[in-house]
């Protein structure tokens, strides 16, 4: 009690000033306003997994673009006298346990044995003596390009199809959804393989094949969201005020679905990378001398026992890409909709 009284005596008049009773003043917003995107970004920044994922994506993309230019070798020059050299990196070659000193698993310095003492192949060379570093990043470039293109096509078709289906509803919705039911009934793996068989294998046919069924997932998500949104009051209000369909879709529906669309795209990309690698792996993908991560891994498998480095590096890179996109996708999902966070 006495403590409290003592404290009360510490309070002097100059610590107070009269409350502002002017109403216009009380309406002023004290803090900086936080929009949807800013809020999401703030939450994403707190997610270590997502940040690691973003850094990996940035690094891998950087290397995919500039990696092939970093040394003097190109991806298609064959030189059988230097085939299957192990990895050798300047400076790091002096640190024994890293295993990048050009010595193979039998303990022979292949660079010396084959007369390439002064050359450096950072990831070694493949069975035709092509520089593996250049090939791996060239392959990453193609894998990423295919994934990005497939994701973009999925995005365009999926958003349009799902949006139209949900917005117009009724008979339109019914017809469009029956078509999807038939499409979904066919295993997409089978459809993709058949499509690739008909077109000649190559980058373009892989992208088309992946997009054949890929957009269905996106269209379902957009349809579900739009169905939910279009009956809400703010849409009704906008319509009542005389907004056209275009305006309602562009100003109210799409921005509200955008979060979901971005999340879905984030998960489409690793899926496409996996499928491309899978197709190259069973011999239906990229044709030599072009390379993708899948075809490089597939080639390496034939000599896995003696030259594991040919499989190791592309495997690590494809795994890192997949992990990174999954982490960022998870992070974005939590950031856009914290309610879902568990």
């Amino acid at each position, binding site marked *: 009690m006495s403590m409290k009284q003592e404290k009360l005596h510490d309070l002097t008049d100059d610590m107070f000033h009269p409350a502002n009773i002017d109403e216009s003043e009380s309406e002023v917003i004290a803090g900086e306003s936080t929009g949807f995107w800013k809020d999401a970004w703030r939450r994403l920044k707190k997610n270590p997994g997502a940040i690691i994922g973003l850094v990996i994506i940035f690094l891998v993309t950087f290397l995919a673009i500039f990696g092939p230019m970093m040394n003097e070798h190109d991806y298609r020059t064959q030189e059988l006298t230097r085939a299957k050299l192990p990895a050798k990196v300047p400076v790091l070659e002096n640190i024994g346990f890293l295993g990048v000193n050009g010595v193979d698993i039998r303990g022979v310095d292949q660079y010396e044995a084959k007369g390439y003492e002064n050359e450096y192949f950072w990831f070694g060379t493949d069975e035709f003596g092509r520089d593996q570093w250049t090939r791996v990043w060239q392959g990453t470039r193609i894998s990423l390009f295919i994934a990005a293109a497939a994701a973009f096509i999925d995005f365009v078709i999926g958003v349009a199809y799902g949006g139209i289906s949900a917005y117009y509803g009724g008979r339109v919705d019914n017809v469009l959804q029956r078509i999807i039911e038939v499409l979904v*009934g066919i295993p997409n*793996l089978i459809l993709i393989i*058949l499509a690739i068989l008909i077109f000649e294998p190559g980058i373009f046919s892989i992208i088309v094949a992946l997009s054949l069924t890929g957009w269905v997932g996106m269209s379902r998500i957009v349809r579900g969201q739009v169905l939910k949104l279009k009956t809400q009051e703010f849409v009704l209000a906008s319509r009542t005020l005389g907004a056209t369909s275009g305006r309602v879709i562009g100003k109210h529906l799409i921005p509200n679905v955008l979060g979901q669309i971005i999340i879905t795209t984030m998960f489409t990309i690793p899926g496409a990378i996996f499928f491309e*690698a899978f197709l190259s792996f069973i011999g239906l993908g990229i044709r030599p001398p072009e390379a993708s991560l899948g075809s490089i891994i597939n080639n390496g498998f034939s000599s*896995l*026992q003696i030259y594991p480095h040919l499989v190791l590096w592309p*495997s690590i890179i494809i*795994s890192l890409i997949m*992990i990174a996109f*999954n982490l960022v996708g998870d992070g974005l999902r939590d950031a856009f909709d914290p309610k879902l966070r568990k």
Partner: protein
Amino acid sequence: MGRYIGGRVVSMVITFLIIASLTFFLMKLLPGTPFNNQEKLSDAQIVQLNEKYGLNDPVAVQYFNYMTNLLTGDLGVSFQQDGRQVSTIISERIGPSAYLGFQSLLVGTILGLFLGIIAALRHNSFWDYGTMVIAVLGISIPSFVIAGLMQYWLGVKWQLLPVAYWDGFAYTIMPTIAIASIVVATIARFMRTEMLEVLGQDYIVTAKAKGLSSTAVVIRHTIRNASIPIITIMGPLVVGLMTGTLVIERIFVIPGLGEKFVNSILTNDFPIIMGTTLFFSFLFILVILLVDILYGIVDPRIRLAGGKE
């Protein structure tokens, strides 16, 4: 319930017929020749072979023959293996694939459920984070990468397990791990989310409040209710498993259906491609149907709504 199942079966048959027709016409569009060593055959022989396999008939007649044969379970004969029946080839090859598929599904589901339950019960603990790391890795790392790493380390370097081929249980371990990894990851993640959802429900509080032991609450109320939605992801998982076996059988040189399928693609053996495609599609549709019916049984709301979400 009977009406619901009836409707689903009808739509399944229609889907299957569409797939069969689509496969047939796509096969007709394929470039390349179906015969081995075509360049060594004389023109007369090619004409004879075309006649023998009915490739000279109009496409409509071929289609009609194909579909009627299909209804009697006849998938045609292989062009390249001395006219052997495709159905015989499939039945010879299905054994290892089915074994591998079931073993992976079983191991993966049990392990996934276990990890998911532990992670949810020990929420935000070491176990939880460990499970989430395993889940992200399992979903992200392609099965062929896992297979390659295992082949090198376990097979070549440490000589613990046979590198490839199909000759007894030891040969199934590495392929099973490679295929099951995605199953474990998907189920663990899903189960964890469902468990956390259920643990927050009012009826769990009620169960605790009426004095039920925590073991009883977990087993009777939480795990049971959380397991129901797992059925919905089993369909896509089984389908993904089929994709997995194609590659894994190729890597481990397992004489299964997937390996045959990939080989027949590379050698243009049309009847085998068509036969296996239809077989895979049939399995796929059957799995989806079973999953839907099963879900209709455990959750009455589904069948009342006519199977629509």
